[in-house]
C-alpha cells in the first residue's frame, strides 16, 4: 500500500501560493538588480590574509576573522546533540547498537571503506590551511565512517557510554572556548591569537573540532536510529 496522496485543502494551497509567490517575486526582483560594483569585504580579507596565519581565505575567515561565529556555530551543534539525546537516551545514556547482524556485503564494504575515510579525513584537516578542506569537511567524513561502521555492525558504540561520549561531543567546543579565554588573558581580546602562534592554535582547534564533529554527527544518527519497537518499549518502561 502506497502512502495516500493527501494534501492540504485548496484554500491552504491558494494562500501558500500567494505567500510564496509574493515572497519569491520580492526576492527575485531584488536579486536581479544587485549592484555590480560592490566588492564586499573581499579586499579587506585579502589585505589581512598574511596576518591571519593561514593561506586559505575561507579558513582565515572561519577561524580567525570571524572565529567567534564558528565558536557559536559549534555550540549550536553541541546543543542539537544534547537535544537529540534528551529525546532519545535520557534514561539509558548509551548508544544503542544499530545493527547486530549486518549484511555481509555491507560489512565487507565498511571494512574496506572506513580506513580510507579516516585517511581522507586526515588529509582534509591538513589541507584546510592552504586548500579546500578543514575541520567541518574532515569531521563529516570521519563521522560518516562512524555511521557506516555502526550500520555494518562493526562499531561497538554502546561501549562508549556516559562520560566518554559526552566528553567527545564537547571537546571541540571546550578547546575552542579555552583558546578564546586564553587569548583574553594573553593578548587582551577574545579570540585574539598571539601572532606567532596563530597557525598552531587554529590547527589545534581544528583537530579537536574534527573529533567532536565526527562524534556528534555519528551520534546524531546512532543515538536516534534505534528500531521503533525498541524506542516504544523504552518510553513505556521509562514512565
Amino acid at each position, binding site marked *: 500500500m502506497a502512502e495516500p496522496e*493527501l*494534501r*492540504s485543502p485548496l484554500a*491552504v*494551497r491558494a*494562500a*501558500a*501560493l500567494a*505567500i*510564496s*509567490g509574493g*515572497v*519569491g517575486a520580492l*526576492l*527575485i526582483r531584488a*536579486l*536581479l538588480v*544587485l549592484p*555590480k560594483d*560592490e*566588492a*564586499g*569585504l*573581499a579586499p579587506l*580579507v585579502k589585505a589581512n590574509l598574511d596576518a591571519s596565519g593561514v593561506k586559505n*581565505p*575561507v579558513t*582565515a*575567515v*572561519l577561524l580567525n576573522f*570571524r572565529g567567534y*561565529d*564558528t565558536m557559536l*556555530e559549534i555550540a*549550536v*551543534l553541541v*546543543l*542539537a*546533540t544534547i*537535544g*537529540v539525546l534528551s*529525546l*532519545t537516551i535520557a534514561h539509558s545514556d548509551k548508544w544503542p547498537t544499530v545493527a547486530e547482524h549486518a549484511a555481509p556485503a555491507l560489512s565487507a564494504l565498511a571494512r574496506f571503506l572506513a580506513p580510507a575515510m579516516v585517511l581522507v579525513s586526515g588529509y582534509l584537516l591538513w589541507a584546510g590551511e592552504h586548500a579546500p578542506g578543514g575541520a*567541518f569537511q574532515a569531521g563529516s567524513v570521519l563521522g560518516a565512517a562512524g555511521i557506516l561502521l555502526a550500520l555494518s555492525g562493526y562499531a561497538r558504540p554502546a561501549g562508549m557510554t556516559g562520560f566518554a561520549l559526552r566528553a567527545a561531543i564537547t571537546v571541540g567546543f571546550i578547546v575552542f572556548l579555552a583558546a578564546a579565554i586564553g587569548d583574553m588573558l594573553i593578548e587582551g581580546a577574545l579570540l585574539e591569537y598571539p601572532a606567532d602562534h596563530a597557525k598552531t592554535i587554529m590547527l589545534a582547534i581544528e583537530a579537536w573540532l574534527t573529533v567532536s564533529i565526527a562524534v556528534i*554527527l555519528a551520534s*546524531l*544518527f546512532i543515538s*536516534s536510529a534505534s528500531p*521503533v519497537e525498541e*524506542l*516504544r518499549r523504552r*518510553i513505556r518502561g521509562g514512565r
Partner: protein
Amino acid sequence: MTQADLYTVAGGVLFTIGLYGLITRPHLLYKVLALNVASGGVFMVFVGVARRVPGPAPDPLPHAMVLTGIVVTVSSTAYALALAKRIFTETGMATLDSADTMEGGEDAAE
C-alpha cells in the same frame, strides 16, 4: 545576466519552492525536507553573491557564512527529525494535528 545572476535567481526560486512545500505539506518529514530545500536556495544566493566579485577568486566571506549555515542546518534538521520520530512513536501520526485529539495537558512538575 551573468553566471552569478543565474545562480542567485535560481536560489530565490528554490527558496520559494521550499516555502510553498513547507506550508502545503502536512507531513512532518516533508516539512523538514521543504526547509532543507529552502536552505539550499538561501545558500545558493550567498554563493552567487560571492561570485559577483570581479576577478578569478570569489569573495571568501559568503563562503564562510554558508559553511556556518550548513552546519547549523544539519543540526536543526537532526533535532527536528528526532522530534518528528518521537511524535510519530507517541501518537502514531506524523503531522502537527497530532495534538488535537488529545485530552488537555497536565504538566505535573517532576
